[in-house]
């Protein structure tokens, strides 16, 4: 049994090291998607409930598992012991105690559970909140700002310090909108509109990811919420409302033509042009985004070329086909799209 005690101690040490490692990771900012590192009031509130549940359970856990370990060592049969232990069948008072204490502990957890369920769902004041309509697609997110007449995809800009009111639905299967540092998730269900709100306290880049299985490329359905300072927000809104769409370089001019003739415009919209397809994501000011392919690749010329060459290779089952573009066409389209900013 001494061996068991040693390996037990080792396990606990390993667990403690692991906990510390996680805390260190979260502290160093290497966990950009962590619910333990909240950056807004909703995620803060949720972390408090997580913390309350955790501490209550840790307390109970220390008692129960401590008791278990104590029992293992104290009541282990020793060699040569043959006497029968006292045959106890129960103890009403004890049984009463360990029925009532859990009820009280759960009541402590139930109060914020109910209170915060309502708080997380309460609609923000429509006169000050910014409305964004979110539509999940296989596999990208559409963000529609009805008051600003802006539609974009995969990168949701918001003003920091402002409540954002989100209406979620889906164009195909169920998706789930999750930006752990700003708010817990809510499903985007076809045929149904769900509401939630979030707020980023400070400017920053908060990564998110679809949390409901939605097909082959579910894992790649990422997105970002970018909270802007007031000046950056004003600039972004202005750029989005007045996109600069005239191609400048010869390559971009060729790409502009390709975009129309190769069929890209049947699916994609670029505001300020005649390209008004609505099947795929809106590509207005695509060059400003830091990611492409549902934010699963960084937005570089090389990645754009890889994507255009064979989209299903990078995103299994994606609706955008391999158009068997020539090298020249890929270069030209990349030049045109990356110029959109």
């Amino acid at each position, binding site marked *: 049994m001494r061996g068991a005690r040693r*390996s037990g101690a080792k396990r606990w040490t390993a*667990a403690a090291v*692991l*906990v510390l*490692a996680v805390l260190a*990771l979260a502290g160093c900012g290497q*966990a*950009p*998607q*962590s*619910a*333990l590192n909240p950056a807004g009031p909703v995620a803060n*509130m*949720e972390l408090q*409930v*997580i913390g*309350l*549940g955790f501490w209550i*359970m840790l307390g109970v*856990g220390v008692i129960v*598992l401590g008791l*278990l370990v104590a029992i293992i060592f104290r*009541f282990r*049969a020793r060699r040569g012991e043959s006497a029968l*232990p*006292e*045959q106890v*069948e*129960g*103890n009403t008072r*004890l*049984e009463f105690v360990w*029925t009532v204490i*859990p009820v009280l502990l*759960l009541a402590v*957890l139930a109060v914020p*559970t109910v209170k915060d*369920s*309502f708080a997380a769902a309460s609609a923000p004041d429509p006169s000050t909140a910014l409305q964004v309509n979110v539509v999940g697609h296989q596999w990208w997110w559409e963000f529609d700002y009805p008051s600003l007449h802006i539609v974009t995809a995969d990168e949701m800009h918001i003003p920091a310090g402002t409540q954002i009111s989100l209406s979620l639905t889906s164009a195909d*299967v169920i998706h*789930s909108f*999750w930006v*752990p540092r700003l708010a*817990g*998730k*809510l499903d985007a*269900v076809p*045929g149904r509109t769900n509401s939630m709100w979030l707020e980023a306290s400070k400017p920053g880049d908060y*990564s998110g*990811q679809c*949390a*409901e*299985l939605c*097909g*082959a*490329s*579910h*894992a790649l359905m*990422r997105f970002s919420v970018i909270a802007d300072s007031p000046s950056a927000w004003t600039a972004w809104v202005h750029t989005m409302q007045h996109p600069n769409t005239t191609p400048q370089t010869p390559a971009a001019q060729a790409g502009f033509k390709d975009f129309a003739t190769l069929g890209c415009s049947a699916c994609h919209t670029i505001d300020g042009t005649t390209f008004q397809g609505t099947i795929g994501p809106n590509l207005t000011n695509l060059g400003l985004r830091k990611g492409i392919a549902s934010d699963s690749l960084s937005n570089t010329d090389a990645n754009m070329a890889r994507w255009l060459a064979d989209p299903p290779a990078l995103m*299994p089952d994606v609706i955008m086909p391999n158009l068997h573009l020539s090298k020249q066409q890929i270069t030209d389209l990349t030049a045109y799209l990356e110029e959109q900013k």
Partner: protein
Amino acid sequence: MAAVSERVHPRSYARPGEPPGLWGWLTTVDHKRIGIMYILASCVFLFLGGGEAFLMRLQLAVPNNTLVSATLFNQLFTMHGLTMIFLVVMPLSNGFINVILPLQIGARDVAFPRLNTLGLWLTIGGGLILYTSWFTGGAPDAGWFNYAPLNSPPYTGSGIDFYVVGLLVAGLGSLITGINFLTTIVNMRAPGMHPMRLPLFMWTAVVMSVLLIFAMPALTADLVLLFFDRFFGTGFFNPAVGGNALLWQQLFWIFGHPEVYILIMPAFGMISEVIPTFSRKPLFGYSSMVFATLAIGFMSFMVWSHHMFTVGYGPLVNSVFAITSMLIAVPTGVKIFNWLATMWGGRIRFTTAMMYATGFLATFTIGGFSGVMLASAPADLQYNDSYFVVAHIHYVLIGGSLMALFAAGYYWYPKITGRLLSESLGKWQFWLLFIGFNITFFPMHFLGLLGMPRRVFTYPPGLGFSSMNYVSTMGVFVLTAGFVLFLVNLLWAWRHGQPSGGDPWDARTLEWSTTSPAPAYDFAQIPLVRGRDPLWVEKQTGNGQMIPVDTAGADEGDGHHGGKVHMPVQTPLPLYLTLAMMVASYGALFHVWALAVLGLLAMFFFLFRWMFDKDPGMMVDIVDAGGEHA
């Protein structure tokens, strides 16, 4: 009295009159043989489901891995979940209940021996149908929960058809099994075994059976609607034509939450047998354990929406279901404390079975803690569909159900085979499994909180997921070693295990009062039950063995006719019925409707054969059957 014979019986397990060899097994109605087949089939599926998990963990070992494709990964986790739930834990529990139930209540078989056989074949048939999908264009890939509308065209292919039909067939088997177990325990207890003397394992079997009877129909309804959507183009779950995608989820979890208690209930019962035996004390707080079991069963029907906190039903619904879900922790806590109190003050013998029971207490309790945390709706908005939930379910399903099933395996293997599993291999296996399990699944709690969603085939570097995923995958190697060692032990002990005798553990309940393995008729004479833990009562009064019920004038009552007992005869009808149903299933699955109709006709033919088949039973001579005459 054939009580504590030290010799190992010839283990053909065949009842007198049963043909030897494979045909005897295929047509048997003996609860022990059926139980053994359930357990063996589950072990095969355990390694299939484990292999699927192994591939997933290899894929997730490092970020942006390309070992397994996205499509294959989705098939792997779907099949892993289905296999472990429907084809491993459920049939394993059914296997142990099958072997032990009649022995523990002092009966000679279950109430409906033929239905028992049918339940076995339907479970295996459903599993085979499900696994056929790997060879016919891909396994189902929308998760075991199979949410609409992802479960319908154009989003998913033929794999989901196999899901629908396979689960319909296996589900029918589960329903039949539930009815059979419940009827048996209600009607066939030995004289003196009134309800408050039932071993707790039998109480959990009662509750599991009731849950099966009320929960399986919700799944069946869901599957039938989906069958119509997929085969005949209706749109029950398709919002585009006025259907409701959330209807699937509602029905699924109305089944699905009781289902997780179907998976854990027998485990509670097994632990409640193992702990008192090896603590040499009666179960602490028996009555409160019974009521806690009933309460958990009842409450399991009132919490289903906690799987759906994020679908947008709003704060009122979420609050109600959060509170009912938290309340389930109270009776569960009562159980944990009662088990601890049973051990307290005992003389605990740490056999492998007891080590597993102790391991269960540790890991299942941790799973319970994360369960309470999950029940808190606002916190769940962060946990839901993250790796935190993956950690939780594996702590309750491996740390709970499977730990208990291993405890049951080491505890009852001698009763089933007449030989003991190796204790030294067993202890090695326990530590490999316990440590491997914790290395694999403990980090997943943190992965979930760091923002890693479930069911992702890969993840990028830079999110802080990489190191813990690597650790988790390393743990799987240790865990797998534990499982393989169990298989080795199982096979080795079959021939070379130490003969156990009838009562190797100095145990308390009726099954230990007969030989190991039990004779075809279980008990030469039906025992008289004179208290809770009937065998222990006799040991305490110095008797050491059960007193037979006075059979004079009570021949009909216990089927005992002066040295002969009345037993049911074997029949191939359940097998034929299952095969006919499988023909109909494959006909539908491959859209060969003539075959489907043929299968259905054959099914009705065998049903009518069954209905009008007279089973006179047979008289088994107690001496001829290998036992010793009373």
